[in-house]
């Protein structure tokens, strides 16, 4: 048991607030996690004390800002066990990281007749960029389906892999169902076929292991704001040899080496992919979030979240007419459900009236909703600061809402 959950809750000022005159029960951490005070303070400190444009100025403020930004890169590299800090590119978020690879790797290495594989479990952000790339290049877009338990059909995946497969993009954890996908196996099979892999770790980096070298991931992408860091910062990890070989994505300041009317040459990694003034406080705030996470034993946090998920699944199943979607062997932090005869939107709105924040709708995963045959689901999602009391509040809230709706 993660003993510090009550003290951890006190680190998040928003969790002490009232919403609609009731204590906030925040169960939407898969959309974004709340921020600990130390992250909020780090952003304020940056703007209060050493705001300056980085990499250019030689004065003290610029040096301090540059150091903080580059130290954040090194910290992120250590956090995911990358070999080099220059394999870390800062972006605006997971979506931009994926678009960068879809554009840049796509321009460099995907030709007509090649194939890209994604899965039916993807968020639109890890689906649409690849679909559009395939349309641009006349490449084949292939989708690995999932079964009734919400697990990927690996036999179909194996059958899809061939010498034309250039890239396999998949999420480590599904944002709609919480399925933990067998990332190592998916990557090994892709590598055996000569394809590279992109792991969408937006929902996994904060909940399960995040060792890119253990996974042998070629690209690994995630957002700061879903792991207790600021909104607006994302990470693209790419193996050095791949990032070196890829053409730039955006162009402009910072990413260039020599510019004249005859010739433009590009800066070294990672700057080649960071055109323009970056969102400097974002990585610095993310670095503070990583330090914050280090206050805890990661295994204890994961065990706490897993125990809470199990408690949540058991508690929800007691509610008559409630259906939980998927039954994967391994699920993490996400409780997707509907209640017979109740519109998901209505449930979400009426839970909000009781201060309970859950997400309703399609969760940017229309292919999943189509496969489930629903217009949407209710999704409760967990983070390290959630407690059994939050689950109890959700269950009691649902009972109360059902009384309002059924008359």
């Amino acid at each position: 048991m993660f003993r510090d959950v009550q003290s951890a809750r006190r680190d998040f000022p928003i969790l002490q607030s009232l919403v609609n005159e009731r204590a906030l029960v925040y169960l939407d951490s898969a959309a974004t996690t709340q921020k600990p005070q130390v992250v909020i303070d780090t952003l304020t400190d940056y703007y209060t004390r050493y705001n300056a444009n980085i990499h250019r100025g030689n004065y003290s403020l610029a040096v301090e800002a540059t150091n903080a930004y580059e130290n954040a890169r090194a910290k992120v590299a250590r956090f995911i066990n990358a070999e080099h800090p220059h394999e870390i590119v800062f972006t605006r978020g997971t979506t931009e990281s994926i678009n960068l690879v879809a554009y840049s790797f796509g321009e460099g290495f995907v030709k007509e007749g090649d194939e890209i594989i994604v899965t039916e479990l993807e968020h639109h952000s890890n689906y649409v960029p690849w679909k559009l790339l395939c349309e641009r290049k006349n490449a084949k877009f292939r989708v690995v389906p999932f079964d009734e338990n919400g697990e990927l059909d690996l036999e179909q995946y194996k059958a899809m892999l061939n010498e034309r497969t250039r890239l396999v993009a998949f999420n480590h954890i599904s944002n709609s169902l919480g399925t933990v996908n067998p990332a190592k196996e998916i990557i090994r099979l892709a590598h055996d076929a000569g394809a590279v892999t992109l792991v969408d770790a937006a929902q996994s980096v904060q909940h399960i292991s995040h060792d890119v070298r253990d996974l042998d991931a070629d690209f690994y992408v995630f957002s700061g704001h879903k792991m207790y860091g600021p909104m607006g910062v994302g990470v693209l990890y790419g193996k050095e040899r791949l990032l070196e070989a890829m053409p730039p994505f955006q162009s402009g300041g910072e990413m260039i080496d020599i510019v004249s009317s005859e010739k433009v040459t590009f800066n070294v990694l990672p700057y080649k992919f960071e055109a323009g003034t970056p969102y400097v406080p974002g990585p610095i705030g993310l670095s503070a979030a990583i330090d914050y996470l280090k206050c805890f034993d990661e295994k204890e946090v994961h065990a706490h979240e897993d125990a809470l998920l199990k408690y949540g699944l058991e508690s929800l199943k007691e509610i008559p007419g409630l259906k939980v979607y998927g039954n994967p062997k391994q699920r993490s932090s996400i409780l997707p459900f509907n209640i017979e005869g109740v519109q998901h939107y209505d449930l979400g709105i009426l839970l909000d009236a009781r201060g309970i924040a859950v997400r309703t709708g399609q969760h940017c995963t229309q292919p999943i909703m189509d496969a489930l045959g629903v217009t949407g689901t209710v999704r409760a999602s967990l983070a390290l600061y959630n407690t059994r009391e939050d689950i109890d509040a959700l269950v009691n809230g649902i009972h109360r809402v059902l009384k309002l709706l059924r008359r």
Partner: protein
Amino acid sequence: MSIKEQEKTLIENFELLENWEEKYDYLIELGYELPEMSEDLKTEQNLVKGCQSSVWFNIRCENHKVFFEADSDSLIVKGIVAVVDKLFNGQTAEDLLTADLSFFETVGLWRHLSAQRSNGVSAMLAHLKKAATDCLTD
């Protein structure tokens, strides 16, 4: 009753209720009181799409007055539809087009509901206004 009088009564009724849950309870009650819409009228053509719920409007124009039947698969949205029904059903196209709908933007519950893009309140109002414009020129 005119649109203005209906609006005044509705705002007063909602303000009498103390908390959000009671307001929603009343809204849902209004939805239950809405005359039923025949299933054959719930066509693709009559669908006003919100992001998380569906609303159907079957609108007729008679003597420059706008009449409609409406329904939604969401009870909350059906309550909103019932409010729209009380305000506008049977009113003249001109009154509908010139009605001040600012209470949707300013009064507690309505501001909260209009601010959500997902329930389609604004799409619903735009749909009615368009029908009223067509009715005016009919």
